[in-house]
């Protein structure tokens, strides 16, 4: 309680000294957190997210009007649930850290929700898409700015059916993420009832060789191979499909929407489908602003697909702390009433599970080495044909 008057005196003093040059030293330091996969196979996405969250903090610190000086504590979950629980505990146990933007991998996000709940530590998930993260429990600490995989798989099944494909083989990794994709895609496809699944193959998330599974799939001769998993094995499966002479359409999820997928495959990436919640970074309401600021910081890596969401998550945390002060309970209380809040990813509204109700799903197809929006692509207007497209 003695802190507030002191702070007020200091800030008034600072204001008197020089209107514009408010010394940063005069502001109280507040710590916020970021967790993502910074090492391992999906580290590009983690580093892109880390940079984006860092950008939000830097811009805030550069803003003379902000009340606090922020410091971002970054921890690495390696995309592994066991590591994630450790770092989440470490971060949540540190009372100086007020809130955090957490997790790109669904497997780690779902593993840590109980930890955050136990410590009363408010988090906003910035990249993981497994529905259970927000919907399994009703934890007031856990929020999410990006959409869930239910929406993207509905859109996926719908497009596949609309294009007239009849048979689908499913490959998914056996983490919660891949299993979730398999479940929701299979459900969505069955609901439409046009195409049927001829085989489902679970693979480990770091598997190298898929020739045995793909040979089996080759015998089933499906029109489409649906893949529920992340970029590294997506690249391998697509490349080994070619080796075995499989001509089916490769239909991916948000997990492969990254520059790394195209770099890893070169021309072979052409004609791959993928789906993601929200709109492409350039088309987001604040996308241009975000990319300009991001590029100005000269980070080594691009923000990748979920960078804008990491930025939005961190920005919302900072906004909230500015508003209610560095107090976990107050932050949680304020985040419970987020409605039509403006952000660079569009309006954010949290439902009673802390889930942002993002309605937009963007459909992508790889065309000439880029993820192009389906509606704008030459595949949609008939100039080019996907494998087996009628």
């Amino acid at each position: 309680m003695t802190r507030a008057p002191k702070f007020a005196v200091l800030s008034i003093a600072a204001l008197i000294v020089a209107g514009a040059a408010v010394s940063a030293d005069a502001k109280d330091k507040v710590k916020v957190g970021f967790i993502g996969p910074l090492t391992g196979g999906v580290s590009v996405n983690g580093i892109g997210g880390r940079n984006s969250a860092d950008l939000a903090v830097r811009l805030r610190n550069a803003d003379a009007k902000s009340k606090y000086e922020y410091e971002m504590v970054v921890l690495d979950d390696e995309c592994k649930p066991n590591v994630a629980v450790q770092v989440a505990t470490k971060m949540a146990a540190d009372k100086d850290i007020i809130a955090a933007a957490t997790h790109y991998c669904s497997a780690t996000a779902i593993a840590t929700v109980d930890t955050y709940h136990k410590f009363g530590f408010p988090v906003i998930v910035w990249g993981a898409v497994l529905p259970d993260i927000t919907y399994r429990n009703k934890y007031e600490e856990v929020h999410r700015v990006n959409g869930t995989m239910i929406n993207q798989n509905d859109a996926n099944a719908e497009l596949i059916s609309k294009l007239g494909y009849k048979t689908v083989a499913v490959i998914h990794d056996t983490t919660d993420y891949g299993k979730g994709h398999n479940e929701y895609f299979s459900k969505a496809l069955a609901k439409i009832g046009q195409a049927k699944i001829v085989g489902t193959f679970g693979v480990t998330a770091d598997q190298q060789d898929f020739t045995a599974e793909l040979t089996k799939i080759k015998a089933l001769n499906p029109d489409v191979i649906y893949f529920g998993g992340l970029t590294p094995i997506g690249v391998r499966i697509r490349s080994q499909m070619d080796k075995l002479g499989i001509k089916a359409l490769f239909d991916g999820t948000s997990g492969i929407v990254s520059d790394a997928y195209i770099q890893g495959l070169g021309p072979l990436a052409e004609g791959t489908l993928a789906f993601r919640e929200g709109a492409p970074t350039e088309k987001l309401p604040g996308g241009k602003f975000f990319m300009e600021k991001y590029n100005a910081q000269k980070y080594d890596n691009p923000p990748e697909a979920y960078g804008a969401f990491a930025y939005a998550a961190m920005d919302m945390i900072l906004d909230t702390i500015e508003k209610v002060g560095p107090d976990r309970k107050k932050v949680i209380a304020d985040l419970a009433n987020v409605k039509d809040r403006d952000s660079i990813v569009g309006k954010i509204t949290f439902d009673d599970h802390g889930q942002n109700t993002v309605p937009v799903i963007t459909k992508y197809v790889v065309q000439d080495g880029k993820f192009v929006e389906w509606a704008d692509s030459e595949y949609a207007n008939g100039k080019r044909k996907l494998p087996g497209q009628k």
Partner: protein
Amino acid sequence: MDAGLLAQYVMNGLMLGMMYALVAVGFTLFFGVLDVIKFSHGDVLTVGAFTALATYAGMRMLGVNSNLLDLIVMLVTATLAMAFLGVVIARYLVMPLRSAPALNTLLITLMLGTVLRESVRLFYPQGANPKPFPALLPRTSIDIGDFNLRFDNVLMLTAGVLVIIGIQYLLNRTKLGLAIRAVAQDEETARTMGINFTAIVLVTFALGSGLAAFAGVMNGLYYNEINFGIGLYLGVVGFSAAIIGGLGSIYGAILGGFLFAGLQTIGTVMLPFASAYKDVFAFAVVIAIMAWRPTGLIREKISERV
């Protein structure tokens, strides 16, 4: 199942087995001369594959556009560089720990593996991403029914067989091989016979690590994709293959490699449940084999207790 598909499975299994065998032979060689398990072996393979990829980029920058020339230079550079790395590891990490408990060597090489792996990720440009590996072998293939026979696979298998025959010849028909076998059998007697123990150990590590580089390049050519994590898994499998074959026996390592690949393929194809369990199946069989024959399928002539 029709014959075409069966042939396809056999071909897949053979390619996989060849890579496992090459890695396993390295483990066996190191164990033979020094009685150590060098866990960084798989990651040396990764570094080898990335060295080859960097060489390729360099060659293209110099304007060399011949696939054959590229491939030869890549193989030679990667093999020599890894042979050198192997010597450095042996000289400065493994040999100084000779009188320490074997666990220390195991731990230190395990950590070195992590260092190598993470270095590739951090220092190779965009090293965290999967990297496309150039297809330098002829891409022709013949379709026989459902069997897609690729010429490059045949070439790689042949090259692998030749390398293994070469190693056999080196070990059994040359003076160097005799020295290696002598050191493997009894270090002290070998020393009294005038064999330069240190030199032989270093040569063996160079040989094994060069083999890893070869396997790394083969891995790249086969999958047309490499990433910083390939060595970790290949290391574990190669090690298991060497163990089931009987550590210290070259034939055992080769047998182990192909056996493991065979088990994985069978695990995917024959078992009714999801292919996710193929590693569970393969490793479970390995455990069973080890329980049945603790010293491996092919025993060393003189059994050693570790």
